[in-house]
């Protein structure tokens, strides 16, 4: 179209005029502070963005309206004016009793959803009494080894009313089974309960590194939960495809976006191959992104995520259901940006990161505590983190209008840049045969490792500032803060409870159920029904995972 061309050159001509007439003399008088301005992903940022940068962006095609394709401006026609995001703080430590107390405290303070942090033995599918669990029980989250622990964890918390997110991956199907049986014992209707299972095994091999089985059988377990939930727990999200961990492991914003969405595509392909209808199960796939320090880059990332996903679902999978096209996501502020030095500064970082998540249209949000780089959060630190969200939502006006940064030359240009960067990665990964193959080759792992190292070097050169770490350091820091200490006795108490559980249960029923789990795994049937039966019989997490380890074997990380 010659007409647009002309406008294009006109916009460009205007920029050139400004550069000569106004900018050049100013630069002559005072040069800029540095040669290169860059985001926290080390991508260059220009001095100014103008209509000349957004010429290729078409309002109807690329931006459009909230609630309409391609959903760049959000999935809800009313944004946060109808419903605020869910305030969902990740919490878990020590014994199930202690975490249950924290849950109730947070709910009382106005939190609107729950999110469970499990300890490392649980995350790796070991019981509290395994020799490998020594020193680790209750340290990084709550210890859950059997249904008995799960009953205590949710005691007095109505699962039909509160939505719960569980950060659990390799053994996710077992923890889902425990959750469903607890719900059943509360007389909650499976058809009405909602919540989210992280269950994103691909990013474990890429970033979080809590694997048990080799990739392919692990993917089979994930599709088992898709199939089971679609049929029996239709309002539950059986997966939260997570960029958070990818970013925290060192990825740039574009890498986070690209690898996460490409993981999402992989799950859709596996589900479809297992015979599920895309328009039936994809609406229950949710996402999880990081909110890092670079405010605009993050907002652009969320907007690009929605646009890419809707296009991919339509173009690659021929999706028809609007809900299949709508990317919903949780956000967590960037733990890795928080410092041991002058820890109260973290409150400020978190507030700004959280605001980016909100301006980017997140569906739920976790704000990190100021003691993030020291230990699991104290009550006090967790409270301020929650209050930060409440202040953003109710005092700042940020939730009053939808996608307030839409139309900004800078944000629209960055959104496009994010999108193009992600699509480039899609091409590379597709050429390798898909995400499973790319992971087997170590491709995303190496990309992330490289970015992590480059960032470290940028900090050490002083190109990236971290207040209190490489600038404005203090040898005497003001006011030490108190931190949470997990009692070593937690392990003994957990071991004692586990012993009790093991003696009280019907041994025959347990052995039988475990045999069924193995059989389902061996025969390539859906493992969920047998897993639920085993959980009901109080088979432990370790026992059920051992049954699956017997059949599937173990993952070995290749060296790279």
């Amino acid at each position, binding site marked *: 179209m010659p007409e647009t061309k002309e406008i294009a050159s006109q916009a460009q001509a205007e920029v050139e005029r400004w550069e000569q007439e106004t900018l050049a003399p100013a630069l002559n008088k005072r040069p800029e502070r540095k040669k290169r301005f860059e985001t926290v992903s080390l991508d260059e940022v220009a001095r100014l963005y103008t209509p000349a940068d957004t010429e290729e962006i078409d309002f109807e095609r690329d931006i459009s309206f909230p609630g309409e394709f391609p959903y760049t401006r959000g999935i809800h026609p009313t944004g946060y004016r109808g419903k605020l995001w869910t305030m969902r703080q990740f919490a878990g430590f020590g014994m199930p009793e202690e975490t249950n107390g924290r849950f109730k405290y947070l709910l009382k303070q106005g939190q609107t959803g729950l999110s469970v942090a499990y300890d*490392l*033995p649980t*995350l*790796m599918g*070991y019981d509290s009494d395994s020799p*490998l*669990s*020594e*020193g*680790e029980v209750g*340290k*990084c989250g709550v210890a859950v080894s059997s249904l008995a622990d799960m009953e205590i964890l949710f005691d007095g918390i109505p699962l039909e009313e509160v939505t719960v997110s569980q950060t659990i991956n390799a053994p996710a199907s077992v923890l889902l089974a425990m959750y469903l049986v607890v719900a059943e014992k509360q007389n909650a209707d499976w058809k009405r309960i909602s919540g989210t299972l992280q269950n994103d095994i691909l990013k474990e091999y890429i970033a*979080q*590194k*809590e694997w048990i089985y080799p990739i392919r059988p692990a993917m089979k377990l994930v599709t088992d939960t898709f199939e089971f939930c679609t049929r029996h727990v239709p309002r539950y999200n059986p997966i939260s495809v997570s960029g958070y961990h990818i970013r*925290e*492991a*060192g990825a740039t914003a574009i890498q986070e976006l690209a690898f996460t969405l490409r993981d999402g595509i992989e799950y859709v392909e596996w589900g479809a191959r297992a015979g599920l209808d895309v328009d039936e199960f994809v609406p229950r796939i949710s996402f999880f992104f990081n909110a890092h320090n670079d405010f605009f880059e993050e907002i652009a990332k969320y907007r690009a995520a929605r646009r890419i996903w809707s296009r991919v679902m339509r173009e690659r999978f021929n999706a028809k259901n609007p809900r299949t096209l709508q990317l919903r996501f949780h956000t967590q502020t960037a733990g*890795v940006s928080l*410092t*041991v*030095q002058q820890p109260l500064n973290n409150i400020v970082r978190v507030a700004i990161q959280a605001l980016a998540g909100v301006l980017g249209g997140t569906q739920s949000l976790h704000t990190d505590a100021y003691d993030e*780089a*020291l*230990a699991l959060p104290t009550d006090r630190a967790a409270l301020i983190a929650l209050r930060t969200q409440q202040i953003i939502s109710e005092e700042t006006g940020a939730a009053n209008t939808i996608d307030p940064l839409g139309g900004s030359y800078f944000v629209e240009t960055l959104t496009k840049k994010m999108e193009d960067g992600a699509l480039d990665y899609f091409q590379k990964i597709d050429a390798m045969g898909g995400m499973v193959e790319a992971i087997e080759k170590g491709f995303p792992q190496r990309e992330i*490792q490289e970015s*992590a*190292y480059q960032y*470290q070097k940028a900090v*050490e050169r002083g190109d990236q500032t*971290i207040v209190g*770490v*490489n600038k404005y350091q203090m040898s005497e820091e003001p006011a030490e803060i108190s*931190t949470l*200490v*997990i009692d*070593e006795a937690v392990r003994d108490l957990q071991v004692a409870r586990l012993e009790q559980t093991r003696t009280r249960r019907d041994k025959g029923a347990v052995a039988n159920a475990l045999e069924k789990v193995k059989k389902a795994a061996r025969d390539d049937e859906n493992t969920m029904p047998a897993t639920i039966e085993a959980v009901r019989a109080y088979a432990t997490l370790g026992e059920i995972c051992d049954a699956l380890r017997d059949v599937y074997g173990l993952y070995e*990380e290749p*060296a790279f």
Partner: protein
Amino acid sequence: MEKKIRVLVAKPGLDGHDRGAKVIARALRDAGMEVIYTGLRQTPEMIAAAALQEDVDAVGVSILSGAHNTLCPRIVQLLRENGMDDCMVLVGGIVPQEDIPKLKEQGVSEIFLPGTSTEDIVKFLREHVRPRE
């Protein structure tokens, strides 16, 4: 030519946080040291055995899971039992202030908290480790 410093970078226990360990491993390599990375989920026994087999001058333990009080002293003890009396043990990661004196008493030479520059770590190793013949 001077012999290169050999370092084993180790990840003990169930901890999967490996960003820091990999950054450190590469920084030491870029500084001209020979670095062996154990990979994840090593028991103290596996770490001590690797240190002996690789004949390293220092073991750098990266631990962010809070299990340091259980795992680090054991690593030191096993190294000593293997006769590696000069092999220095460094610890990096999330270690509360109050645990630091105790770890040092139990034989850890130095503890590096988040925010430490890799140049400082390189400097520390060069000053304190003398590669053995």
